[in-house]
C-alpha cells in the first residue's frame, strides 16, 4: 500500500478534482491524459484484484476511463472527491461488463417525507474532508479489521464467505466489521480517537 503524507494526499486529491472539472468544462484532453495516467493503473489493479483476467481488466479499464470523459460534466466535488467518484464508475462498469448485471442507482432527488428539513443530513462535512478522513481512519485500523474490509471490497465476499475463507467464526467477522465501522464513524464525526 502506498501511504503518502496526509497533506500531500489532500493536495493531490484537490488537483485530481480540478482535472476532472477541466475535462467536464472544457473537454481538456491534456487534463484527461493526466487523469488516465493516475487512475487507469489503479482501476486495472482493482479489477485484477476482483478476479478479472487481463483482457477483461484492460477492456473494463478502457470503458471506465471513457465513462469518466463522458460524465465529467456531472462530477460534483462537493458530493465526492475524484478518487471516490472514479471508484463508483469502475465498480459499476465491472458489474455491467464483467458480471453482466444492471446496477440500480438511488434517486437522490427523492426527498419527500423525510423527517426534519431543518436538520439536513451530513451536510456538516465537505466531501473532500470526508474522503481524507476515511483514508486516514482506514490507515489506522488494526490489521485484522483492515483485512476484512479489503476482502469485502476486493474479493466480492459476503461476511459468510469471509468467515469460510478465514476460518474465523461468523460472529468474530461481524464484530470486527462493527468495530471497523464504529472507528470510521468516529473519524467522520471528527473525533480521531
Amino acid at each position, binding site marked *: 500500500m502506498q501511504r503518502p503524507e496526509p497533506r500531500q494526499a489532500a493536495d493531490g486529491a484537490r488537483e485530481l478534482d480540478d482535472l476532472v472539472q477541466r475535462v467536464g468544462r472544457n473537454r481538456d484532453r491534456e487534463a484527461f491524459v493526466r487523469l488516465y495516467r493516475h487512475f487507469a493503473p489503479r482501476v486495472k489493479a482493482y479489477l485484477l484484484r476482483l478476479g478479472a483476467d487481463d483482457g477483461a481488466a484492460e477492456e473494463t479499464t478502457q470503458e471506465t476511463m471513457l465513462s469518466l470523459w463522458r460524465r465529467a460534466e456531472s462530477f460534483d466535488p462537493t458530493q465526492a472527491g475524484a478518487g471516490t467518484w472514479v471508484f463508483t464508475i469502475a465498480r459499476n462498469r465491472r458489474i455491467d461488463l464483467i458480471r453482466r448485471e444492471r*446496477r440500480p442507482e438511488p434517486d437522490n432527488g427523492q426527498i419527500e417525507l423525510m423527517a426534519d428539513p431543518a436538520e439536513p443530513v451530513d451536510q456538516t462535512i465537505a466531501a473532500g474532508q470526508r474522503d481524507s478522513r476515511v483514508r486516514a481512519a482506514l490507515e489506522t485500523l488494526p490489521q485484522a479489521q483492515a483485512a476484512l474490509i479489503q476482502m469485502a471490497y476486493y474479493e466480492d465476499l459476503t461476511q459468510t464467505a469471509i468467515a469460510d475463507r478465514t476460518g474465523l467464526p461468523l460472529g468474530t467477522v461481524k464484530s470486527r*466489521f462493527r468495530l471497523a465501522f464504529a472507528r470510521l464513524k468516529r473519524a467522520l464525526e471528527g473525533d480521531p480517537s
Partner: protein
Amino acid sequence: MGYAAGSLREPHALLIATHLSLCPDCRAKAAEMDAVGGALLDGLTPVEVAPETLDQVMARLDELVPPKAPPMPADPVLPAPLRAYVGRGIDGIAWKKLGRGISEFRLPIPNTRDYATRLVRIAAGREVPSHGHDGDELTLVLAGGFSDGEHNYRRGDVAGADPTVSHRPVADADSDCVCLTVTEGKLRFSGPFGPLLTYFRG
C-alpha cells in the same frame, strides 16, 4: 457496505437503491462506504496498463454516445430505480391475485433464478398467513404499512426475516400496504446485510 462494494446481486442492489431513494440518512452512509472504496482504490499498487490502451481510449473520445433514455415519469409509490424495473406506474401494474386480500407482481430480473423479487400488495387490515422462508427475505415498505407483532413498518422501512423466523405480518388498517420483497431461494441469505443493517440503524 455490500451495495457500495458492488458485491450484492441485482435484486438486493435494487432493494437497497430503492431504500436509499427514500432515506437521506442512509444515502449519507452509502456515500461514506463509497469513500472507503475510493480510499482503497487510491492505496492500490498501480499495475501496468497496455501502452496501446491510452491511444485506443483517445481515439474513442469523440465517439457518439447514444442518448440516455429519458427518465420514466415520477410515481408516487415507486421510487425511480424501482419504477425503471417495473416499467409502469403503480396504477398500471397487472397484479396477480393470490387470495385473502393479497396480490403480487413478479419483477423480471435476468439470471436471478435463486431469488424471487416481487411487489406484494396486502389489502388494508388483512393478514399474511403465517409463513417461514426457505431463504432470507427482505421487505421494503412502499405504501401503507404493516406490523409483525414486534415492529410497525412504514414507507421506506426495511424488515428482514431469516429462515428461522415464522412471521405473520398484518397490514395497517388505514390503507393497502405495498412492499418490495426479495426472497432468496436455494442460496442461503448471508452476509452483506448484517453490517449494513447494523450500521444503518446504529
